[in-house]
């Protein structure tokens, strides 16, 4: 009973935003206030999501609600056998939680935008696009099959394209949108190939059916290797969407979009979709695949963190920190710390959205000034923004009592444990180092923006605290960034509902020999698992987690503390002259400032390569191919005197070459037609003689 009710609600809140999109877009011109409809729909959505999550987690925690229908049915085909494509939605705890996050942040962003976007010529269309995005995002969350995942995957891509390029009059904005979409497509092609692999092997797109067949030992081309390849290919999608190295270049540019959009899409939800995807298909990830994933994650955590150190655009800093945090999550998935990855996804969603909205409020106050060097001293002008912002910064730096601390600590512990079990401490080291960097650049930004003396006086004068409709979302998010919502114990989330009840982990389905050893549950683990709902880890892993718990906490605190301290030393108390330092290590500084020259690299290689190739082929096509069929232009020119009139019929080209040839033959022939009857007769006689000689031989 309740199941069907939940399903219905889910379907409803899935399609409501689409309705909102359609209505708002079509009536946008006529009805000025239509955007309120969109906002209202989001409110409904939020309510529905919360209802679902609540019932799901309380009453039917371990159930998995599925409802599907047959979309395409080719019946029994000669060579491929039964082909039947089902679409449908699945609600498990993860989906339920994710829905709440999406709907909540989307709703808050809608509120925020009401004020932030006021006076924009395409006001209503903006909300319409938000509706489209929310629809697509919910689709990703609720899907029960990988095809639908891909479909909505592309749809969020489009809505992101539309929103990034919302101010398309700005070339940079239009470019950024294009870049985002195309870079994403690169990942998507990989994901699509992965899907092809899966379908060719299992003749279905539905996760559960695929898992079922895998657990019966059916593998692509019957080899663990190809299983890993498939996993990695699917993960490519995540690389694109979650802006992981080496496809991370689009996210900073995406900041061209309106700031609330950055908060919703490029911080909280869409970019997290990559993580969500991996969470969904975690069951098919072999050890090799996971190591790959972890490495990508680690790099994506490290590189942007180093870049963020030197950026001066407030949104750019946040963008890079987003990549870095997503890297954390991916890495955590890679090292098998499955729950913490998703946990961090949620917490990060809240405080990062908060950070963006906060920066939005600042930018709004500074009349769209984004350079932090133009700011300073805003603390007094906009207290609410400041304190919330501070809280978010603490959370992202992983200071106790914040949600960030819990999840981040979990991730570090996970990688640490992984290190102790496998002897590969690389990920742990990266993790801790990034923690340091994060704390540093976040507080660098906080200090430069809010502390000290205002650097740009008149902008400062006009600055003022934003309206309630903007600050309220900030406050809500701030509240949500405190540990209490997730666990009673601020230092250990394990007892918290979210880990014990909320994220009931999937098991892995791939053959045991292809997994991490510690992902092969031992007997005891299973017994224990029945309590926690987790049947995933071997007890050795549980022990490792226990043993690393405390050291991790201490270490991470040290790192965060150190980072913050340095920030104050550098920027608050000015003990060290930063510029001198920059001068001293100019190469390093520039390297970081110029984002490791990734864009330049790609421009020089991939982009210009493709463009060049296409230019070449374009020429090639018109000259050579046309040429080969067409006969070389030079020849034609050379004989154009001959071809003369003939050109009028068939100008150049094949036509031309053939024309030239046949024309030439014709020329030879017409030499005979001298008009002198006697010459004719000579020819006749000659030919008769020739014929005689030819046929005499018989």
């Amino acid at each position, binding site marked *: 009973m309740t199941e069907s009710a939940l399903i219905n609600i889910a379907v409803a809140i899935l399609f409501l935003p689409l309705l909102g999109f359609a209505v708002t877009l079509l009536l946008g011109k006529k009805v000025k206030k239509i955007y309120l409809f969109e906002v209202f729909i989001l409110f409904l959505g939020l309510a529905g999501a919360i209802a679902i999550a609540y019932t799901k987690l309380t009453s039917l925690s371990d159930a998995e609600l599925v409802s599907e229908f047959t979309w395409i049915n080719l019946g029994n085909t000669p060579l491929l056998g039964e082909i039947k494509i089902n679409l449908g939605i699945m609600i498990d705890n993860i989906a339920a939680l994710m829905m709440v996050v999406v709907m909540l942040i989307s709703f808050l962003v809608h509120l925020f935008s009401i004020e932030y976007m006021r006076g924009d010529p395409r006001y209503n269309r903006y909300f319409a696009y938000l509706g489209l995005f929310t629809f697509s995002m919910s689709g990703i969350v609720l899907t029960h099959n990988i095809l639908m995942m891909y479909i909505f995957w592309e749809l969020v891509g489009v809505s992101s394209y539309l929103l990034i390029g919302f101010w398309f009059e700005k070339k940079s904005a239009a470019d950024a949108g294009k870049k985002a979409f195309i870079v994403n497509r690169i990942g998507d092609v990989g994901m699509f190939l992965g899907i092809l692999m899966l379908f060719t092997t299992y003749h279905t797109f539905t996760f559960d059916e695929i898992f079922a067949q895998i657990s019966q030992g059916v593998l692509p081309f019957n080899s663990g290797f190809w299983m890993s390849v498939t996993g990695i290919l699917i993960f490519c999608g995540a690389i694109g969407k979650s802006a992981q190295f080496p496809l991370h270049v689009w996210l900073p540019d995406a900041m061209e979009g309106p700031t609330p959009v950055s908060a919703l899409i490029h911080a909280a939800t869409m970019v997290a979709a990559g993580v969500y995807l991996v969470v969904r298909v975690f069951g098919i990830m072999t050890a090799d695949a996971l190591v790959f994933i972890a490495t990508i994650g680690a790099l994506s955590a490290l590189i942007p963190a180093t870049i963020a150190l030197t950026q001066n655009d407030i949104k750019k800093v946040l963008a890079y920190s987003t990549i870095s945090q997503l890297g954390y999550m991916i890495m955590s998935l890679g090292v098998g710390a499955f729950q913490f990855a998703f946990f961090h996804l949620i917490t990060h969603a809240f405080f990062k959205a908060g950070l963006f909205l906060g920066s939005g409020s600042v930018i709004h106050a500074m009349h769209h000034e984004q350079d932090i060097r133009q700011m300073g001293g805003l603390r007094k002008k906009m207290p609410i923004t400041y304190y919330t912002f501070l809280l978010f910064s603490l959370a992202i730096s992983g200071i106790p009592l914040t949600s960030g601390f819990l999840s981040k600590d979990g991730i570090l512990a996970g990688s640490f444990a992984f290190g102790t079990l496998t002897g590969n401490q690389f990920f742990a080291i990266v993790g801790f180092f990034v923690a340091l960097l994060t704390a540093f650049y976040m507080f660098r930004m906080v200090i430069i923006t809010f502390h000290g003396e205002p650097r740009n006086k008149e902008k400062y004068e006009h600055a003022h605290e934003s309206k309630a409709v903007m600050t309220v979302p900030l406050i809500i998010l701030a509240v949500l960034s405190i540990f209490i919502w997730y666990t009673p114990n601020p230092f250990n989330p394990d007892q918290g509902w979210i880990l014990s009840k909320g994220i009931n982990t999937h098991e892995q389905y791939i053959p045991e020999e292809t997994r991490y050893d510690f992902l092969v549950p031992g007997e005891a683990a299973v017994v224990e698992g029945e309590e926690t709902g987790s049947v995933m880890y071997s007890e050795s892993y549980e022990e490792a987690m226990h043993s690393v718990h405390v050291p991790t906490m201490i270490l991470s605190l040290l790192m965060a503390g150190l980072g913050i301290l340095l920030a104050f030393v550098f920027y608050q108390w000015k003990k060290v002259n930063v510029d001198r330092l920059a001068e001293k290590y100019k190469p390093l500084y520039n390297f970081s400032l110029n984002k490791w020259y990734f864009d330049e690299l790609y421009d020089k290689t991939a982009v210009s390569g493709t463009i060049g190739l296409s230019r070449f082929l374009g020429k090639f096509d018109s000259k050579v191919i046309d040429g080969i069929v067409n006969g070389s232009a030079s020849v034609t020119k050379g004989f154009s005197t001959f071809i003369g*009139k*003939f050109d*009028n*019929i*068939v100008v150049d080209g094949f036509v031309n070459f*053939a*024309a030239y040839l*046949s*024309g030439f*033959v*014709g*020329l030879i*022939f*017409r030499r*005979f*037609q001298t*008009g002198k*009857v006697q010459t*004719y*007769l000579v*020819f*006749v006689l000659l*030919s*008769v003689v020739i*014929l*005689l000689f*030819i*046929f*005499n031989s*018989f």
Partner: protein
Amino acid sequence: MNTEQLLSDIGFIKPEIAIAITLVVIVVVDLIMGKNKKALPYISIAGLVITGLLVIQQFGTSVSVFKTSPSTSLLVIDNFGLYFKIIILLASLFIIFFSMASNEIKSTYARHGEYYTLIFGMILGMFLLSSAVDFILIYLSIELLSLSSYVLAGFVKNSLRNSEASLKYVIYGGVSSGVMLFGISLIYGLTGSTNLYEINSLIQLQNFPVVTLLIAGLFVIVGFGFKISAVPFHFWTPDVYEGAPLPITAYLSVASKAAGFAVLIRFIKITFVDSIDEHGFWQLISVVDWRSIIILLSILTMTLGNFSALWQDNLKRMLAYSSIAHAGYMLLGLAVLSNEGITAIMLYFLIYLFMNLGAFFVVMLIANKIGSEDIDDYKGLGRSIPYLGVSLGIFLVSLIGLPPTAGFIAKIYLFIALVDAKMITLAVIALLNTVVSLYYYVRVLRNLYLVQTEEKRPAIKMSLLNSIILFLLVAPLIIFGIYFTPIVNFAKSSLSIFGF
């Protein structure tokens, strides 16, 4: 041979007699009426119609008449010959109408008597030619045909083009008929006979010196080749076609070609064919490889025809070359050396009659108005002459051989014959030629329609008669293009050549 035999034989040449009588009547009427020549064309038409009836009524008969010896005769009356006679009659009929519409001919009003007399001279020659089986008669009828056409080619005396054409024609023709005659004399020397059937049986029996036979045969073929303007005996064609008055050009391009083909086919088939196998393929007497000669000639003919046509700016001249090319296609049908191939040729001729005459007719009407046959003077003309333009289009498309025009049927039937005989290569060559031919045919349409011109082009008012003629020429192309059963049946039923 005795008199009643002779009388009964005369009964079989009623059509020829009808022609002769009409000829005489024309002369007489011309004398009596003096200045007023109005009646002449109508008399000729009447004569043609009567002849036509006689011919049709003869269909199905297959006899040899005017026996020179128990086994040999001068003429045979068979469907094959009658079929070509029908074609010749149709052509002549149209030509009479053309002449009534042509300014060139009108300008010679005073001499219309001669004009029609000569035309009937030609017709008589062609009639005899298409049913002659004795070299004497063949030679005589060729001469009869030629002499009349020499004069007609230069009929408009004060025009240099005309006179030059006829001079070239007469010299060229004289020589080729002379050469042919020499060939005949050789054959006569070898076999002691001038009757094709007799020669055939003689060749089968004893083996003559091949070289002499080859020379003789080639010399004879020079004569025929001259009539059907096959390369390399074609040189007169473009010049004469361009020079001659347009109706005569049209006439030469269809009627005398038809007669030429009739006699050529008959000559090859009767003289050199040994037997016909069950698939309708002819087994040649293995003395000289006539097939290869014909193949060679046909390839040369269509290729040269098409490729030279690319260069022509004078429409008449272009059509001359195109007619050479078509002769080449038809020779392919002969090269197949099968009844299938002959049917193809006959079918081709019937359709060729309409499309080629049609093309010439339109050219003539336009020339009457704008006084030029230069393709470049056709620029942008299409709009001002809708009906003429469209029908010219149809004629040209049919000449290219695109469906749904009859031209396509003619071609495809030819190719069916070729493929049936496994001569794929030839078929490919022919098809490529077709593509080449597209260039110059379409060029006309292009000038008519695609080229926009500023200056107002003259509209051409069509007399009712001309419209009807035009329609009579266009309609069959479309009708037979879509439903060609009747003409194929006609051609097929007319296949029977006396003696086989």
